[in-house]
């Protein structure tokens, strides 16, 4: 059943992976926030397409949430935070951008290798979508691990969450309630992290999380 709908679903999932790679590539905070908005926008498109081909109107709500919250509100808010904090705009990556991207490719390969055989029995639309969604999640984690700056860690976390949503919508039949609660939990997490950022900044005059390490007890 290779149809155009199948192709577009893949394409959008592929774009999401591409957007994740763009995040890994970005070295500037503002550009990173733009990519985050793009990421959420692609997710919204992808979810809307799933709603269309699965004939599941409640997914449109998910898409709208993704578009409203993640593609507009959160990037805007993060941008305000960055402006207010006057954060140093270049992001330091642990191990260089090239190596991080290479790691990202390895993660994509890994998730494809793991997911494709496991989901061999399921619906072919879901199959590769889930594999790509897992790679989005893994790249989000990689982003959180390799970036020193707290704002980019938040971005990594949000992209990770986008991957989860992609997997959930591809799998058919995630209840709306779950989706809404996930969205709210992300929002809460976002608020907490936002406050947290201000507090770190007040205390240590930087949001490089490396600075926190020095204040941990019990390391001597």
């Amino acid at each position: 059943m290779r149809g155009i709908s199948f192709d577009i679903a893949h394409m959008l999932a592929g774009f999401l992976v591409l957007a994740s790679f763009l995040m890994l590539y970005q070295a500037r905070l503002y550009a990173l926030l733009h990519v985050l908005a793009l990421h959420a926008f692609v997710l919204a498109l992808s979810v809307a397409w799933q709603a269309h081909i699965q004939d599941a109107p409640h997914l449109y709500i998910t898409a709208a949430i993704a578009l409203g919250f993640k593609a507009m509100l959160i990037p805007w808010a993060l941008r305000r935070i960055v402006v207010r904090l006057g954060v140093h705009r270049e992001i330091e990556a642990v191990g260089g951008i090239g190596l991080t991207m290479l790691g990202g490719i390895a993660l994509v390969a890994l998730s494809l290798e793991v997911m494709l055989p496991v989901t061999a029995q399921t619906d072919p639309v879901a199959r590769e979508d889930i594999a790509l969604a897992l790679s989005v999640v893994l790249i989000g984690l990689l982003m959180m691990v390799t970036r020193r700056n707290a704002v980019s860690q938040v971005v990594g976390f949000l992209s990770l969450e986008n991957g989860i949503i992609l997997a959930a919508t591809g799998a058919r039949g995630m209840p709306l309630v779950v989706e809404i609660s996930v969205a709210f939990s992300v929002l809460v997490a976002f608020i907490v992290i936002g406050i947290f950022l201000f507090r770190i900044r007040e205390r240590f005059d930087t949001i490089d999380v490396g600075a926190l390490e020095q204040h941990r007890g019990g390391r001597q």
Partner: protein
Amino acid sequence: MITLVLAAIGSFCLLAIAGAAAGRAAVGRYGVYGGCAVLSLLSFGVGLSAIGNPAETLHLPLGIPWIGMHLRLDALSGFFLMLLGLGAAGASLFAIGYGAHEEAPQRVLPFYPLFLAGMHLVLIAADAFTFQFAWEAMSLASWALVLSQHRDPANAHAGFVYLIMAVFSGLAMLLGFVVMAGAQGGFTFEAMRAAHLPPVLAALVFVFALIGAGSKAGLVPLHVWLPLAHPAAPSHVSALMSGVMTKVALYGFIRVVFDLLGGVPWWAATLVLVLGGVTAVVGVLQALLARDIKQLLAFSTVENIGIIFVGLGLALAFRANGFATGAALAFTAALFHALNHTLFKSLLFFGAGAVLNATGTRDMEQLGGLIKRMPVVSAAMLAGCMAISALPPMNGFASEWLTFQAVLLRPELPQWGLKLMIPADGALLALAAALAAACFVRLFGVAFLGRPRSVMAAEAVEADRWTLAAMLGFAGLSLLTGLFPGVVIDLLGPVSQAVLGTRMPVQMTDPWLTTIPVEASRGSYNALLLFAFVALSGGLAAVVVKRLGHGGLRRAPAWDCGFPDPTPMTQYTGASFGQPIKRVYDGLGYVAHDRVDMPAPGDTRSARLISERSDLIWDYLYAPLGVAVGRIATILNVLQFLTIRRYLGFVFAALVVLLLALALWQ
């Protein structure tokens, strides 16, 4: 035919004696090198004819009493014999001229024919003892040649490292043969071929062969000796070691893994693919940063060995999955590249030797502007640089293109390791090719173009006619094999048929001599036509533009954006040329440390930029190993100061333990 090879080996040994007798006399040089050239041409012919003919065997009652000496000349041996003959003939021709500058010819002349004899014997050996004997003879003779200028401490160090690695490689090969021979002691290759080893033992043999042949060929991480030893030898020996001896090592690998074992499981292919890809990139990156021309070439040998191993790994992978067409294509591509590498690497080493003779230095930062002082050498070097950078229409591109076509066959492979490694190797090969181009732009641009950086370079003179003959001959062959890849592919057909049971389709019947590896719709390449087009359109453009336009030409000082500078010191050096690449690829096999030594104000000392590079493989593999050996030696040192009674006690205990083991075994 095989008797001819034996006769050649015998004559090499006689030449060695003659060389020892001749001492410093010039006649020794002409006699030994001239004789070697003639004999090598003979073995080239024998090899060529052996490719198409059925295998010949010979059993001599020499060596170990109940085994004797088994010799065999089949298509695979024939191809490598041809390659050896070609490389050795060129090197000997070159050496007639080059040897005139030798300070101590008596240290080279006896060992050079012995080295050739050893390599010949490896190729026709058909039992483990003969093979091992020849392998060690080859190692020892080349070791003696590496040490021919032993007063230089760097060379002494190189010789030491080489000896350790050669012994290690020989040991690994030996262990491989022992496992294959088994308890029954089937030491002939025939018996090994017939024996079906259990998978665990086959895996063991594979690993031993990979280590043994791989370290001789220069596979990362066993390559450390190569960039030390190859440059230390006289240039014609460097050419032989890089261009030919590494191929003999490859022959050992192919003989054991493809022929005697008869195929390996997919994980082994994956291992070869990983090592090959890593070798290619690590080798070329080190070459890009090398300052010594011959060392640069040696590192580039490591890269090319990586490319060949990628081809062999693809062949193993396809074979493990029963995909015969792909295996034949990849195998042919690998052997084609081996031949190409012999041609252009020998050529480049000849060029390096000619430059060394003309200027007295191998340091590219001392050179420059040689294209005007040594035009013919420069032109031949340019051909070699283009060939090794895999640029059409030269031969390096033809084999690279075939390897890419093999990657693109993409059969349905069930194993995840291969599914990931084959595309990754495609990327690594492409990266290595692009870096090789950068590396040889640097070599040619710094050493041969621009303005001379030293008096020696400014006063260099063109090389002698022997050197030029050897260089031009190999440059011509590089071009011809590039223009007519079909000839080589067809030549390799019987080899692939003998080893794998399949071969690539015959190329020379294709219209316009086009190379079509699988089928015309999948991809084709016609070097001859393209070369003709490029030459034609370039020539046409030159004529038309000159006619149409002003047509005049005037010489003037260089413009240089309005900053005419009188000193050649302002040119880009090799180090500055390599700096961006060094920075971009920092961490891939090396770590660069740049620091600025800025004197305090008032200090009249000049500021310095200190640029260092640490080799990760040496630091993290060999240095700890060396330290561990040192520690163990210190612990065992106690044993040196025992009483005689205790020593006797040790001997006695060892004897009793062995007897006990024997008793338990039965």
